[in-house]
Structure formats: C-alpha cells, structure tokens
C-alpha cells in the first residue's frame, strides 16, 4: 500500500491559507476605501511615497511663498502710492516755480508760494519716511531707522542704506522688496549730488527773501525740479513693473498649486471605482471559497457509514 494520501490536515491547511489571503486583501481594500488613501505606509509603493513627500514639500513651500508674494505685493503697492504722491507734490512745486519765475508775480505772491513750497517739502519728507503696515520704513533699504533725517539746520539727508532685501516668491525666484530712498529722491544736478528736499527748501528760502533775484532763482530751480520729477517717476515705473511681475508669479503659483494637487491625487488617492469593483470581486471569491469549503469538508466517508 502506498503511503501517499490526500491528508485531511493538508486540505484544512490549504483552505485556511487561501481564505486568509482573500481576507487580507479585503481588509486592505476596505482601508483604502475608508481612508481615501491608496498608501498607508511607504513600503506599499516606495517610489510613489517619495514623490508624494516631494510634492507635499513643494506644496508647503508654495503656500509660504504665496504668503510672501501677497506681502510683497502690498508693500510694492504702498511704495508705489507714496511715490505717486511724491510725484504729484513735485509737479505742484514745479507749477509754483513757474509762477514764481513770472515777473508779474508780486512779492506777496512769491511769499505765498514760498510758504506753500515749505509745506510741500514737509509733506514730501513725511512721504519719504512712510512705513509698511508692519511698521518698517518703506524707503530705507534694509536699515532699521527712518529713511530720511532732518538736521538741526533743516537739511534733509538719507539715513538708510543701498541694500534691498530679496523675498522668495516662488521656487527659485526672488524679487527685490522695493526701491531705496536714495534711488527715489536723490539725483545729480549738473554734476553735484543733491536731493528733492534740498531743491524745494532752497527755492522756498530764495522766494522768501533769501535771494536778491528771486525770479532768476525760480527759473534755476525748475531744472532741479525736473530732475526730481524725472527720478521719482522712473522709480514709479520700476515699482509698477515689479508689481506686475508679482501678479504674474501669483497666477503661475495658483496654476502650479492645482497641478500639485492633481499629481497628489493621482499618486496617493484611492481610485474609488476600481477599489469598490475589486472589493466586490474579492468578496465574491471569498464567499465562494467559504461555501465550497463547507461543502467539501462535509464530504467525508464517515457520513456514509
């Protein structure tokens, strides 16, 4: 008689192992469906898990960079507003200078103009020392103090530095935060460095009796005012261009955020339709093997004895 037989123990062992593996895949599908996540641990798909980590990092950094871009846009808008105001002031000063240069304007008229020019100079000083919403000077470069200071003799000088901090607004893209006060208000006049405040204060002083020939002084001042207006509006353009750039970057970032979300979903989310179909398939297989197991295990010769 041969020793080889179909052992009952082997049958139970095999059936248990098969049903166990079906139950295992059912549980995995169940977890995928209930969490919505395809991967519960990295080892299920190492490459996808690593890609998801990189995407999560890009997403987090993009959020912060978008914050930075918002803040930069606000700062640039404020700086632009202040410079536009300064340009208006200087245009008004130029009108006044032309009026003062007219011989028909009397001494009283010139005194009134001098008074107004002094006021304009004060207002320009305020605008040049404007601050951001969070309290930092707009035009001082990276320095802490006010951008311009007035000495005891009334002369105004630049107090900031020529550094401009850069802000990361997108992966690999840094934008300069603004322009320095020196760029906006200081210029060379006939080879001599001066600033808008000096031009205004000088004209005001000349018109209020400081000059023997106020008309000639007013005529001479127009050249300085032109240079001041020129410098200011040039920087207004710079800020406008930069602001437009920030907006382009913000649009790109928004597009990119969508792409990242799409990729994350592709890599990490459960495909519900597929998962549910597979769950149903596995359920059917498990039910079938359970019922065939009960039937086969009932088939024993002892029932016939």
């Amino acid at each position, binding site marked *: 008689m041969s020793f080889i*037989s179909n052992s009952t123990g082997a049958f139970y*062992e095999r059936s248990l192992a098969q049903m166990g593996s079906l139950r295992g895949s059912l549980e995995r599908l169940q977890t995928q469906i209930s969490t919505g996540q395809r991967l519960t641990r990295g*080892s299920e798909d*190492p490459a996808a898990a690593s890609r998801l*980590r990189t995407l999560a*990092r890009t997403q*987090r950094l993009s959020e912060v*960079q978008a914050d930075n871009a918002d803040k930069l846009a606000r700062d640039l808008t404020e700086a632009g507003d202040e410079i536009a105001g300064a340009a208006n002031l200087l245009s008004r000063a130029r009108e006044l200078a032309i009026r003062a240069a007219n011989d028909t304007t009397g001494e009283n008229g010139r005194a009134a103009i001098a008074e107004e020019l002094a006021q304009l100079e004060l207002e320009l000083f305020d605008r040049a020392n404007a601050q951001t919403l969070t309290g930092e000077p707009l035009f001082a470069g990276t320095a*802490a103090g006010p951008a311009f200071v007035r000495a005891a003799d009334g002369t105004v000088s630049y107090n900031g530095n020529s550094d401009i901090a850069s802000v990361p607004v997108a992966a690999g893209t840094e934008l300069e935060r603004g322009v320095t006060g020196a760029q906006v208000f200081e210029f060379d006049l006939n080879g001599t460095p001066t600033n808008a405040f000096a031009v205004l204060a000088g004209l005001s002083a000349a018109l209020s009796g400081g000059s023997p020939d106020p008309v000639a002084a007013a005529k001479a001042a127009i050249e300085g005012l032109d240079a001041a207006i020129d410098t200011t509006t040039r920087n207004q353009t710079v800020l406008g261009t930069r602001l437009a750039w920030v907006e382009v970057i913000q649009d790109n970032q928004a597009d990119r955020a969508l792409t990242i979300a799409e990729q994350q979903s592709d890599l990490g989310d459960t495909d519900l339709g597929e998962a549910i179909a597979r769950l149903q398939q596995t359920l059917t297989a498990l039910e079938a093997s359970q019922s065939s197991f009960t039937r086969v295990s009932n088939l024993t*010769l002892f029932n016939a004895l």
Partner: protein
Amino acid sequence: MPGAIFQIGRSGAAAARASIELTAQNIANSANPDYARRSLNTRELVGVSLTSNGTLNGVSIEGISRNDSTLVQQQARSSASALARADAELVGLRDTELALEQSRLFEGLVEFEAVLTQLEGNPLEPALRTNALETGRQLASTFQFANTTLGNARRQVQDFASVSLDEVNRQTSELSRINRNLVNARDGTAGQAALFDARDAALRDLAAEVGIEVTFADTGAANVRLAGPSAGSPGPTLVDGASTFAISSIASVDGTLDFAVGGAPVSLNGGALAGQAAALEAQADYQIQLDAIAADVIARTNAAQASGADANGAAGQPFFSGTNAGDMELALASGMQLATAPAGSPAGSANTTNLASLVASLGTDDGPVGRTDALLLGLSSRLSAQDVTRSGLSAIAQNAQATLLSETGVDLDTEAANLVRLQQAFEANSRVLQVASDMFDTILGLR
C-alpha cells in the same frame, strides 16, 4: 487439524482488532500536527515442519510502522527556516518604518524650512521670529521622538531574539532527552513511534528559530548542526546524541547581536534568530543615518547663526545644542536671536542674506530634507523587496508543508475505508472460528 484453524482464526481476529485500534488512533490524531500516520505491519505465520509441506499458523503482528519521509521533512524544515528568517526581518523593518515615518520627521523638516522662508518675507516681524523658533523646538523634539521610537523598535526585536534563543536551547535539550530514550526504545513499538513524533516536532520548532542540518543515527536519534552558508557545509554541532551545545548571544553597543557556540563565534543562516539579527543590523544602520541627519541640521543651522547678526545686531548664537538625534535641543532663548542678517549688520537690519543662505542650505539635494527622503525611500524600498521575497518563500514553505502533510498526515476517507475493510476482516475471522468450532463439534458428534 482443527486446532490450527482455531489458531489461524484467532491470530486473524487479533490482527484485525489491532488494526482497527490503530485506525481509531489515526482518526483520533487526525488534527494533531505532530502525529504521523501509523500502520500495522503483519506477516504470514508458517510453521516449518520436516515431515510435511509445513503448517499454516495464521498471521503475526510485526510492529507499528510510521509514515516517514526524511527528505520531505528536511525540505519542510529548511523552507520553514527561510520563511521564519524573512518574517522576523520583515517584522523588525516594519517597526523601523513605522518609527521613522510616523515620527513625521520629513514633515517637521519641511515645516522648519517653510517658516524660515516665511521669515524671509518679513524678517523683523516678532510673531514670525517666535514661530520660527518654536518650529525649531518642535523639530528637535521630532528628532528625539524618532530616536525613541527607533529605540523601542530595536528593544522589541532584541526581546524577540532572546525569546528565540531560549527556544533554541530548550529544543536542543529536548532533542537530547529524546535521543537518550530512542536508544532504549524497541523497534516497531508504539513508544518508538511516539518518540519519533516528538523528535520531528522538536526539529521543526528548532528549525523555525535557527537554520539546522540534521543527520540521523541508526536508532533514529537526531544529530543537529547549525546550517552553514551553503548546503553541505554545516556549522558547529548543537546536538550530538545525548549531549548539547548551547548558543549564546553577545549584544554590541549599537544594539546588534553576535552569536557563539561554546565560545566560538558563529553566523546563523535561516531561522527567526537570523532574521532578528539582520533586522537589528538594519536598525543600527538607520540609527546612524538618523543621527547623521540630526547632526547635519545642527551643523548647518549653527554655522548659519555663527555667520550672522541677530535682530539686535549681536553675533548669532548656536541654534541647537547636542550632536545626534537623541540629545538635540533648542539652544536659542528668543526669536530675536535668529541671525537673519549677515555678520556685522546693525540692529534692526532687514537684510535677509544670511537667512536665505540657511534656507538654501537646508533645501539642497544633500541637505537634511533630501537625506531624510533618501532614508525613507531606502527603508521602504528594502521593506517592499523583502515583502516580495517573503511571499515567494511563504509559497514554497506552504507547498513543502502540504507535501509533508500528504505524506505523513491522516486522510479520514482512507481511515473510514479501512474501518469498513477491517471490520469485515474481523467478522470473517470470527466466522473462521465459528467454522472451526462447528468442525470440532461435528468430529465430536461422530458415532
């Protein structure tokens, strides 16, 4: 002669009854995994006589034989050893993956990078500075947490290994006891078959813990040696007849285990113990990588601090203290001490050059973020490959186990058929006795 018929009928009935008892024993043990099916060996009994052609004396019971297949047993043992090794290593690596992934170290590093980037947008904002500082504190405790969970995973594997080692030494002394008894057991007895069952069970349990090679003495006593790196070149002896040689383990500082038999170092091939040793080595390697990443973060942030000036214009102080993942701590006391500006900058400088170079340094490919990703990717790839290996080994082991069961296991249908057959044999022999009795009566009734 009627006396012979009685003798023949009696021996036949006795053999049938003994076979039925053995069948009942087989049925009773059909669910016992250690039991190998028994069958009764019988032999025709013929008396030799010088005067005639011989006398017929019925059947004699020779002994109990036990289904046994050394080769299949050996295959089942070695495949179970390989599976147990893969299983044990997989469990250790799973715990390691859990420790490193769920500590959310990668996310912690990205968050640190993100708050520093945010600070670049507004370097003098106190809220952002405090946020950056607290995220640094969080990062240090994340490293400590990862270090602790990795340590816990390591301790768990070490506990498993010490249980495995105890089991090995328990099974080898059990085997030596069985070997002693086998020497005294008579061939073909039920006692000998039971000892063989116990021997095979002990060998199976031993093989699950450590890879072995087995040779059998004439008595059936098992001599066990550690499996070598390849088949046919076995390692040192564990069991030789009645004597045993215990395996001992030596733990290193990094948590890995070395094994020795009788003081001489051995390498294990196969079995849970080998898998646990491999898992411990992997964990020691990941510990080194984790510490290196922590040291890298400390070095990069402290170097950046040293080359910068803080919000008050003072030289930057170290960001973190410590040298590895376990002792990393935040060293700065206030957000104002973050050296965002280059060295020599005055107080309140909005210059972020120094901060920008720190952010760039953290985010480079060989920086801590990239290295953590590489660490996790390496670990999960290794685990995934190990999982594939394990399912292959599991199929082989299941196959070998099924083959073993079909060779040695009890088939209830066969036993049921035997029951019917043997019952009929018993009835037939009873009938022979009846006939003998009738014949006797007939002879006695002759007048």
